[in-house]
Structure formats: structure tokens, C-alpha cells
């Protein structure tokens, strides 16, 4: 019996060694995903952007001012929204083989100048909308990581969704932050160690003491201001915030999975939108649990890492370590 078990263990080790093949990179997507990308081809997936001017009113989507292929409007927010939507589309299409938010080529509808002095940007289930800010708290919302964040909410919705409350809501927010940050890093061609890992850098008003909305590198440090208070994001489960505010802390506790992604990406080094981004995207496509907890999500990312980079790969080991460091043991 013991001899049989030893033989089995030996076989498992051999199989794992074949799969991990120390020294050789295992950065590839699954054969099915690769075939899909090859079949579609980078040049075949094209966005269909439709940018509207809300004319500072509440009605959506407003007046269509720039369609796909149109020349610049000269309206700064509209042209930035157009360019940024193209970059987000490209991240999902060229890196992950996804055809728009619904993976079926849906138009990218956005409204700029939504309401007057509106201090927010959102995805409403159908489209993106961007306020201008009141110039005091916020100066703009047309920033690449913000646009990536909002469009990622669309991808999440069409990938099975994550209920927008408590831990599943915080995952929804975190995954939107991850792909927002990855859009920016890819746009600037920054490797993980070069990126600032801020979401919404530079959008706070001129008199606000802060760098951004959130920091994935150091959650809880994005701003500290007399008016806004202190960034409340935790980075570890020991400091998980139990609250009914903010739909159960969806923008607060997202700091924990955000930091796990940051740790994983910086452990690996290189371009974070490649292996780490592919693993997160693959996990999102495989999750199939709108009420997922942080632990469920961590487990799914490990499964994805094993599928994409090989069972027992160094990537999977480092990912497990990243989750452990934020207090989520798998």
C-alpha cells in the first residue's frame, strides 16, 4: 500500500514538474482562449463608441456628438471620453479576447457633462456617465483609470455580475479598480514596479489634500483632508470594516482584494495587465457566483492561475502568498 502511494506521489511530482518546467515561462492563456484570440485577431475587434453631451442635464444619454470614426469634437471631455473608451476596449479585446463590454460588440455609450457640478461618474447598467465635478471636491472624472473602472463595471455585469453589497460588492468595486488601473498602466506602458497603483489620480479638487480616490499599493493613504477626512480603506482582513454605509462598505473593503492584486503583480514583476490581468479576467469569467465572498474570489483566482500557468506554478504559489498576506488563507 505504502509503495503504491509512493509511486502515485512520484507520478504527481513528475506531472507537476512537467507542467511547471522551472525556468520556462508559463505565461500563456489556455489553448481555447488562444484559439479564440487568434480567430478574432486584434484588428477584427473594433469598438463602436458613441459619446454624448449631457448638456449639464440629468437626462441620459443626451445629444450624440461623436460616433466611431468621427474626427475630434474640440470638446475636451468628449474627446477624452472617446480616446479613453478606445483604450479600455483595447485592453479587453487585445489582451483578453473580449469583444466589448458584453463580449458581443455592444456600443460603448458614454455621456459627458452629466448634470451640473456633478461629483461622480457611474455605470448605470447600460452606459457610462461622467460629471465635471464642482471644481472644489473634484476637478474632473475624465481620467483613464476612472473610465476603465466604469467600463469594467459593465464587463462584470455581463460576466455574471457581483451583487453590489457587502463582500461581493467590494469585489465588484475591486475588480473595477483593477482593470481601471491596468488600463492606465498599459496606456503608459508601465511595469508593475513603475506604476503608482492609484485610482483617480489628479481628479481631486485643488484644495483637497490627497493624491487620488484610492491606492491599491497602500490602501488608506489616498487622501487625508480636513474636509474629506481620512481614506478609510483597509489592506488586511484584520481591519475589515463592518458597516451598513456605502452598501456595506463596497468602496471601503475593496482595499483588501485591491492590495492582494497589487502584491501579486509586484511579486511577479513585468506588465501587470498580462499574467495577473489574465488570471483576474479568467477568474471573473469562471466565477459564476454573484454573491461571492473574498475567500470565494481568492479561490477562483488560484484556480485560474493553475489553469493558465500550470498546477503548482510559481505564479500560483505567489498568488496564494499575496492572498495570505492580506489575511485570506486558501
Amino acid at each position, binding site marked *: 500500500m505504502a509503495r503504491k502511494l509512493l509511486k502515485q506521489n512520484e507520478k504527481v511530482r513528475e506531472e507537476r514538474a512537467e507542467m511547471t518546467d522551472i525556468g520556462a515561462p508559463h505565461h500563456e492563456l489556455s489553448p481555447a482562449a488562444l484559439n479564440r484570440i487568434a480567430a478574432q485577431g486584434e484588428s477584427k475587434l473594433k469598438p463602436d463608441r458613441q459619446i454624448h453631451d449631457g448638456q449639464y442635464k440629468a437626462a441620459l444619454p443626451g445629444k450624440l456628438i461623436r460616433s466611431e470614426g468621427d474626427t475630434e469634437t474640440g470638446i475636451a471631455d468628449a474627446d477624452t471620453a472617446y480616446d479613453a473608451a478606445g483604450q479600455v476596449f483595447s485592453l479587453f479585446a487585445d489582451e483578453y479576447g473580449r469583444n466589448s463590454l458584453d463580449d458581443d460588440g455592444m456600443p460603448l455609450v458614454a455621456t459627458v457633462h452629466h448634470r451640473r457640478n456633478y461629483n461622480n461618474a457611474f455605470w448605470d447598467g447600460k452606459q457610462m456617465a461622467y460629471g465635471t465635478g464642482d471644481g472644489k471636491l473634484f476637478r474632473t472624472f475624465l481620467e483613464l483609470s476612472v473610465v476603465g473602472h*466604469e467600463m469594467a463595471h459593465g464587463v462584470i455585469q455581463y460576466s455574471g455580475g457581483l451583487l453590489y453589497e457587502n463582500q461581493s460588492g467590494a469585489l465588484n468595486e475591486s475588480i473595477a479598480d483593477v482593470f481601471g488601473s491596468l488600463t492606465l498602466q498599459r496606456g503608459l506602458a508601465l511595469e508593475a514596479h513603475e506604476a503608482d497603483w492609484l485610482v483617480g489620480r489628479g481628479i481631486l479638487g485643488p484644495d483637497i489634500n490627497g493624491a487620488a480616490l484610492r491606492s491599491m499599493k497602500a490602501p488608506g493613504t489616498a487622501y487625508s483632508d480636513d474636509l474629506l477626512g481620512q481614506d478609510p480603506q483597509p489592506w488586511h482582513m484584520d481591519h475589515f470594516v463592518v458597516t451598513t454605509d456605502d452598501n456595506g462598505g463596497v*468602496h471601503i473593503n475593496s482595499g483588501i482584494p485591491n492590495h492582494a492584486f497589487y502584491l501579486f503583480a509586484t511579486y511577479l514583476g513585468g506588465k501587470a495587465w498580462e499574467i495577473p490581468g489574465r488570471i483576474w479576467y479568467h477568474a471573473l469569467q469562471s466565477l459564476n457566483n454573484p454573491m461571492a465572498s473574498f475567500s470565494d474570489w481568492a479561490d477562483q483566482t488560484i484556480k485560474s492561475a493553475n489553469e493558465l500557468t500550470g498546477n503548482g506554478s510559481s505564479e500560483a504559489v505567489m498568488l496564494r502568498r499575496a492572498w495570505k498576506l492580506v489575511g485570506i488563507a486558501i
Partner: protein
Amino acid sequence: MCFSLNCSHHNPLNCIVPPYMLRVLELRGDEPWRIWRASY
């Protein structure tokens, strides 16, 4: 339409700015209609 700054009253909106950051508008003494206009 309520004047609450809680996003849940206005779902399905996935806002990037959380309600606790916008609550300062209320503390600043802005009238409810102004908070609503500025935030939702």
C-alpha cells in the same frame, strides 16, 4: 427622488465616488436640493 447620498437609493448606479466622501457637501451646509444636484 430622495435627497439621500446613499447610492443604494439610486441603484443600479455603480458610482466611483463613495457616499461617505460626498457627505462633506452636507456638512458644508449646502441645501438638500444642491446636494442632490451635485451628487446624483
